[in-house]
């Protein structure tokens, strides 16, 4: 009898310890399948609809070669005009721009938001594509992004993005994150209510009349009393959706952008994006409009919760190592590898060699969860982190004139 009781207790202890992780994993997988199922049914809009389009590009200390490639790719799209809003201190980019048939607006006001507003105010077409200066377009991006606008309710259209010629582990991981986003989150949001949570600032096309309408709100964004400097793309998407318009991701429009290859810049970029996401999603979830898009609300909540739950898996792994439960350790590690591979199948089909990067991808995901929690704890901080600008006394100012940094697009992950 004692032996039986003892065995029962052993089994009970085992299940009490590890069962919650299994149940939690099941719930997380259920949430993912809820997103993945509509995403699998996604198809880009196909028609012959076309509207005139301007390309507006804030430019600040861009890599000259990438910048030239980017200008050439925009011009190859046969857009009506390309407006480059170049920082007054950036003579190198102004020299490059002078070689192409583009409109140059020189600004001495630091900050991306002001440059964007100047750009769309200078534009003259129905549609305005807001583009990062390191983003290279395919030849049909303008044509493809026009197609969803056949629906008058559509206010903004996003594109599918990838890393420009990825090299090294971090850029490959970034490419995996991007595919995960455009084949999963954005695709499902486009299918379920045409309400994408963020039209990435690397390339997003809006109706100009809407941009003019939201200019003041866009420039005056604050969070808990602090003016917001970064997160412009998320803000624009939110303002569009808030006014009852729709946001769609047209995956057939493809663009490529540069990504950091060093861990330091990678982490800083992710920290900035995570702060923007927390601010935007927490604010949205406190408003009524988001509940008109229940799937969008669900994905926002799901993303917030996952920041916490994702860290439980490594915690259980640590517990298993301490208990020297090597069978469980091997099972959990194997499960991480296999399950995460299943979740990024669209990327693995495209790049099978990434299968061997999946363990690293998993570890980076855990690190990102820590970064997200750090971002939540420092949500009121306003720093670009990868550029020499910041908000001081409510005004965007340059923190240094000297260092030439590669510009990064901001897309809230």
């Amino acid at each position, binding site marked *: *009898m*004692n*032996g*039986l009781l*003892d*065995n029962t207790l*052993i*089994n009970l202890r085992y299940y009490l310890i590890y*069962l919650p992780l*299994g*149940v939690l*994993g*099941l719930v997380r*997988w259920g949430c993912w*399948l809820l997103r*993945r*199922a509509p*995403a*699998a*049914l*996604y*198809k880009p809009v196909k028609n012959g609809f076309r509207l005139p389009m301007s390309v507006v590009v804030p430019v600040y200390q861009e890599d000259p070669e990438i910048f030239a*490639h980017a200008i*050439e*790719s925009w011009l*190859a799209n046969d857009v009506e005009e390309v407006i480059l809003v170049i920082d007054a201190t950036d003579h190198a980019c102004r020299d490059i721009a002078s070689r192409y048939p583009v409109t140059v607006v020189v600004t001495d006001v630091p900050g991306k938001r002001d440059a964007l507003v100047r750009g769309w105010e200078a534009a003259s077409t129905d549609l305005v594509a807001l583009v990062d200066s390191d983003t*290279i*377009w*395919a*030849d*049909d991006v303008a044509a493809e992004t026009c197609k969803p606008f056949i629906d008058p309710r559509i206010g903004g259209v996003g594109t599918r993005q*990838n*890393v*420009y*010629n*990825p090299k090294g582990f971090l850029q490959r991981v970034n*490419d995996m994150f991007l595919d995960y986003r455009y*084949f999963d989150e954005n695709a499902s949001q486009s299918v379920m209510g045409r309400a994408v949570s963020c039209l990435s600032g690397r390339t997003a096309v809006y109706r100009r009349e809407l941009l003019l309408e939201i200019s003041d709100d866009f420039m005056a964004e604050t969070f808990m009393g602090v003016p917001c400097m970064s997160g412009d793309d998320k803000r624009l998407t939110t303002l569009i959706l808030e006014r009852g318009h729709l946001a769609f991701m047209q995956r*057939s429009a*493809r663009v*490529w952008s540069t990504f950091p290859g060093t861990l330091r810049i990678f982490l800083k970029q992710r920290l900035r994006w995570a702060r923007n996401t927390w601010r935007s999603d927490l604010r949205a979830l406190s408003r009524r409009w988001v509940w008109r898009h229940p799937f969008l609300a669900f994905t926002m909540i799901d993303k917030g919760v996952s920041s916490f739950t994702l860290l439980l898996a490594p915690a259980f792994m640590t517990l298993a190592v301490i208990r020297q439960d090597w069978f469980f350790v091997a099972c959990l590690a194997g*499960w991480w590898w*296999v*399950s995460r591979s*299943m*979740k990024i*199948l*669209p990327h693995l*089909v*495209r*790049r099978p060699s990434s299968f061997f990067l999946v363990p690293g991808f998993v570890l980076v995901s855990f690190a990102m969860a820590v970064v997200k929690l750090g971002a939540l704890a420092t949500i009121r901080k306003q720093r670009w982190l990868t550029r020499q600008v910041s908000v001081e006394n409510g005004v965007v100012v340059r923190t240094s004139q000297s260092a030439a940094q590669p510009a990064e697009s901001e897309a809230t992950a």
Partner: protein
Amino acid sequence: MKPTTVSRISTAVTVAVTVLTALSAVSAAMSPAAAADPAQSDLAAWQRNGKPDRLIVVRPGVVDLVHHGVIEARRSPGAGDVRMSWLAANAGPDWITQDSDDPSAVQVRAAVLLTPGTTLRIGRVTKKVLFTAGGSAASGTWIRGSRATLDIRDTALAAVGPGGGDLADGTGPRPYLYMGAGGRLDISDSTVSGFGLSGRAPSRFSGVTWGKGSTGSAVRSTFQGNRTGLRLAGSVGVRLNDVTAKDSAEDGFVLNRDTGTSVTGLTARSNGRNGVTVGGTDGRTLSRVTTRDNKGFGVRATPQNGLSLVRADSGSDRGGGIRLLSCVNCTVSDATVRHTKTAVSVTGPGSRVTVDKPRLSDGRTGISLGEDIRSATVTGGTVGDFTRGVSVSGPRVTVAGTRIDGSRTGISVAGRAHDVALREVTIAGSRTAVTAAATTTGVSLTSVQVRNASGKGLASASTGLRIKGGSVSGAGTAVDLGAPARLDGLTITGAQRGIHLSRAVRATGTELDVLAERKGIEADRGAVIDITDSRVRAPLAMAGDGEIVRHGHTEVTLPPFPWLGFAAIVALLSAIGLQTVHQVRHRRTPRPKVARHVRNTA
């Protein structure tokens, strides 16, 4: 003078001395008055004690200095005890040299004989006594006595070369202390180093020896680099308390035929043979014996009755921890042994031993019970990280309440073992928890718990094995039977295979609860198992070409469905399915047209 002349004179002197000695012996035998003559007695003592070159004979009220058998001088210390400081001051530098710089240090150049009724005290003034070693056998230094007292306190006794320097290895002969019948030897807060005749010299001169009928004590003292650190040879009522023997050429402590010895706090370290050797005496108790790094056993007990070894602590002794040879009614309690070949071994005819609450770790065998023992009992305690935790080769062995962890084989029953009972034993983390060989009989397991055996929980070829209660949780094969057995109330969980019966084996089981991951019960061709009121759950509950006969309320079911695993597989298949849907829907999506420098376009 010519050498031949010197030789003749020397021969003449020797002959004369021999003749005189013979005459004195004869006269002593013939006349009591002559025997009382100190000169005659000194000569007799000189002869009896190996004819040393220089012999100091301490008699009541008289000290004779005997040089080559002739009394060279006579000193009178007065009534009472003789002190080493007095001897150093009065014997002369050829006998005892006093350090001119340090009056507390002396070098003894003569043998010292304590006659009955005398007392020599070392320690109040003299703190360092160097005994000259080397040279010939006759030039050796020692202190012997019988019916006398030698009292050494707060003193360092050491052997040195003739010039006072350190002794080289192999230099002989070395000094020793020996107290004989009726004598008393007390050593406290002192150090004795480099003592003991080597080679074929009698063992009583191997360092510091309490001889037959002597008594005394050794307290808070260290015996270092002796042939034998300390020896009790037939002593009576000696007290050993907080004594250390280290770096001895042979054993650290030898306790042989002594009676009434009180032992607490012995430490034997880095000795050339065993740390402690005990034998020849019944009813002895040794407590708090600590042994480290000895080349032989930590504690070696030769044939005796009623030895009680309490809280022995052995570490890194090369020969083994505790060895009991033909020890009858002996008990080893609360022993700690680690990092050695065999922690506790019991062998020899008639051995009857109890090992209580041992804490044994790291080695080849935790407890070895030999074939020729009479009986043994192991109760409580822990045995961990051995190749074999407990090895039972002899009869009438009981192991009860002991926990065995991390040993390749938990308990091995083999050899001439019979009537072996394992009760409430826990064995965890073994490859094979319990093995019982075909040569054994009458093996029973009661409430034995086996956990996480990587191979077999119980492997038996022992006819008539009996299992009552207990459990096996986690094993390749929980119970592997190669001979008839009876299993009652056994619970098996987490095993790949619950019970396996080899060809033609017959077994019975009642109230078995088997939960296996692959096979519940597998019986090979010709094997038969009768199970009654049992439950067998496994994907393949019954397997093999043998016969499994069910009686009473025996239930055979599949194991609980692994819902989580099933859900995981469904989730993975869903992901693949959804990806397939996606692939089909986008099968005609062309590659984008883009400048050639963009390569990530798939």
